């Protein structure tokens, strides 16, 4: 039962353009969302988060948008850089517990 879905296994974007990674969730109790980035042979690293009281959070080139009615969030990276090539995991949690549920990840390729 996938509560956090990342339906695109991979995405290729030209360097300098905008990368948009999408994530859907099914559990309406989720109210805190995170993105993690993972390079090969390394563990995931925290990128950015958003609480359900907001619909947007920005940190440098990274912006996360949350659409609660659609149970959808997206991560925008602009401009995309070669070092952004990695797997991006969407994750979510509900207030009632601190467990974080991860999606399967989307592999982002930044093309030169």
């Amino acid at each position, binding site marked *: 039962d996938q509560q956090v879905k990342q339906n695109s296994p991979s995405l290729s974007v030209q360097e300098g353009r905008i990368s948009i990674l999408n994530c859907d969730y099914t559990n309406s109790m989720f109210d805190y969302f995170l993105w993690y980035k993972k390079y090969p*042979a390394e*563990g*995931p690293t925290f990128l950015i988060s958003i609480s359900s009281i907001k619909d947007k959070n920005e940190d440098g080139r990274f912006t996360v948008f949350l659409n609660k009615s659609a149970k959808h969030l997206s991560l925008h990276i602009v401009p995309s850089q070669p070092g952004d090539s990695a797997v991006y995991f969407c994750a979510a949690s509900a207030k009632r517990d601190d467990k*974080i549920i*991860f999606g*399967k990840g989307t592999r982002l390729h930044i093309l030169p």
Partner: protein
Amino acid sequence: DTAVSQTPKYLVTQMGNDKSIKCEQNLGHDTMYWYKQDSKKFLKIMFSYNNKELIINETVPNRFSPKSPDKAHLNLHINSLELGDSAVYFCASSPTGDRDSPLHFGNGTRLTVT
């Protein structure tokens, strides 16, 4: 000066064997975790410990037993290994264990059971 380190990086073993994976964090964090990334790429929590005390214990077979000798270490012992245990196991830590306290992951241990 690795923040969360786990050993070994690779582990190949036969069915029925018992093995351990070690994890240490030097960040001074209170909470440590074990996550499993299976062949379908899902990253799922197995256990979490806060200051040596078990907090989360997901529906993991009894063959898996975490041990936390102190708050900087959380080791994972696996008895009677099965083929389905093959996966990448990630150790992680966080400052407080609260959900808005980002996880710091180790680089993973790839376990292959033959």
